[in-house]
């Protein structure tokens, strides 16, 4: 079981190692981690912390994509839930109240998407596009168009605090990821979701409650976006409805794709998507550390992403397998010939 997971995420691990080596060339101290004021400090820690939002989104997005859907609304949901959290904390609802309200709003956003997709039957890309465009407006209504700042140490702790020296966001996404992965693989849920993605009608005929599962999957995505929204707002101690989570839905989809999951649905790996998210953040942080002019940021990122996706493509993989087999066959033939010549 363990070795199968390891083989599944091997391409992502290799990619991360190559990226780390590349960045170490332009920024020698890349892998160094030191302790200052009782907390771990270093570029790697920054990656684990800054990658948290995309990693959280990627968890929900993986499940949605496994059902052959897509959720474009997560960036807007970050803006809404962040605004809700900041609004409720500054109106004296307390930490528990703010968190539960923000999470509830995230679940409602997911419910909305799920109902549109599963019950009304709108294509996922169109159904979630509605909230993607409208959601930011909702967030601006809550913040009244300004950056809603708050001073509450409990909420700020979720963005910039640390436990045992590790930043809270860097702990939040692995915990969420492991919880979701265990829920999927220790129960039949993962299998059922894959069945819906491969053939929804057939799975419904086989007795799977596809509607309920689809709604649950979109609500999970909304929940993950709510967690991401909370740490985004907590990080800067304010909700910026214009910019929070902007375009992050695309990074989340990219993380799922770099994780080797098919956009056609079916088999999925949450762990691989999380490594995909870390690959994206490693590229982002590496570019910042390298000190190139900012005009090059997106070009470098695009070139690296293209290279990663090409190397991971099924066509190239089958070519590799083909050449590997030919090489092995030729070696076997050579060995046989040598044996024959020896006799």
């Amino acid at each position, binding site marked *: 079981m363990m070795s199968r997971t390891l083989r599944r995420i091997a391409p992502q691990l290799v990619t991360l190692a190559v990226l780390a080596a590349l960045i170490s060339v332009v*920024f020698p*101290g890349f892998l160094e981690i030191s302790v*200052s*004021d009782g907390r771990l*400090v*270093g*570029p790697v820690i*920054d990656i684990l912390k*800054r990658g948290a939002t995309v990693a959280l989104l990627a968890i929900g997005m993986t499940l949605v994509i496994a059902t052959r859907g897509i959720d474009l609304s997560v960036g807007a949901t970050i803006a809404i839930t962040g605004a809700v959290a900041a609004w409720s904390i500054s109106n004296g609802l307390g930490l528990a109240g703010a968190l539960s309200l923000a999470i509830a709003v995230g679940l409602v956003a997911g419910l909305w998407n799920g109902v549109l997709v599963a019950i009304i039957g709108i294509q996922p890309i169109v159904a979630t596009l509605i909230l993607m465009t409208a959601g930011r407006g909702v967030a601006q209504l809550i913040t009244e*168009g*300004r*950056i809603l*700042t708050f001073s509450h140490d409990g909420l700020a702790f979720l963005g*910039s605090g640390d436990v045992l020296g590790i930043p809270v966001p860097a702990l939040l996404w692995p915990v969420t990821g492991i919880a979701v992965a265990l829920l999927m693989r220790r129960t039949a849920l993962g299998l059922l979701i894959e069945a819906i993605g491969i053939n929804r009608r057939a799975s419904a005929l086989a007795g799977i409650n596809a509607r309920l599962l689809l709604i649950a999957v979109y609500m999970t995505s909304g929940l993950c976006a709510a967690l991401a929204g909370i740490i*985004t707002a907590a*990080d*800067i*101690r*304010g909700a*910026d409805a*214009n*910019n*929070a989570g902007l375009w992050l839905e695309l990074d989340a989809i990219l993380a799922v794709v770099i994780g080797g999951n098919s956009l056609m649905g079916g088999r999925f790996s949450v762990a691989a998507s999380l490594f995909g998210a870390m690959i994206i953040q490693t590229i982002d*942080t590496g570019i*910042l*550390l390298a*000190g190139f*002019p*900012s*005009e090059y*940021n997106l070009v470098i990122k695009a070139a690296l992403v293209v290279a990663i996706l090409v190397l991971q493509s099924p066509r190239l993989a089958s070519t590799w397998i083909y050449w590997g087999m030919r090489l092995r066959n030729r070696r076997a033939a050579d060995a046989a010939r040598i044996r024959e010549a020896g006799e």
Partner: protein
Amino acid sequence: MKRLLTMTVATLALGGAAASAQTVGFSQIGSESGWRAAETTLTQQQAEERGIDLRFSDAQQRQENQIAAIRSFIAQGVDAILLAPVVATGWDSVLEEAQEAEIPVVLLDRMVDSDPSLYLTAVGSDLVHEGEVAGQWLVDTVAGEDCRVVELQGTTGSSPAIDRANGFRAAIEGHDNIEIVRSQTGNFTRTEGKEVMESFLQAENGGADICALYAHNDDMAIGAIQAIEEAGLAPGSDILVVSIDAVPDIFLAMSEGKANATVELTPNMAGPAFDALDAYWNDGTMPPNFIQTESRLYTQSDDPMAEYEARRDLGY
């Protein structure tokens, strides 16, 4: 009651100047940022103080809405039109219509690429000059000592980012003690300002090698201030912080000693516009083609708390 009294006094004082109530149409881009919301609030305040009847139209980021608004202002026969254009091109025909109706048009904050004869004047800030003021402050403050500066740029390729970068460089030119060692975009947002500042601190020996931060807007500076604090340094003393815009929150940071200076991009574009219009209405004085607003420098000694209080309700 107190407000009513001051308003009455203001109306009495201005009553002589504005003999008859003028009507002015104002076509605003929208309310995409706090600064623009403040510009709208201040324009309405300025009109009220001068006894001008302001007709406000929010274009929600669409040029066709602005053109429709201007046509409707012309049809209503207003005495002047204020226009904050959403884009630079495509204004010729509607500006000609206003000219034929003999209604002066004043551009606020942004320029158009039409012929200058089609509008009375334009009020705006000089973005290069803002960068120069920030750079000059740093030159004066470090007074010859060596200073390694990190720069948080605006959105790559946007005109504020280009101009504010150039202005700052022009001001520190010839001062070899000041050197920009790292420069990256923070996209004008707090989150990215914080993230990029974290990487600057990593790259520059935990921040020990950084003497000052120059941010192209206050929001990035506020994000960066948090990053500096979380790295265990004191923003404002260990690392000097200078930025541009003068939004309320930077004054709060200044009052706590965490930011050092900001250059104001004033949202009061309407004040100079109404002054120019008053002169034009009274005796036909033609204003210059471009009225540059003041890029005022605020530091910790300018009573930041009072500035914060004065600005917090403007809609930023």
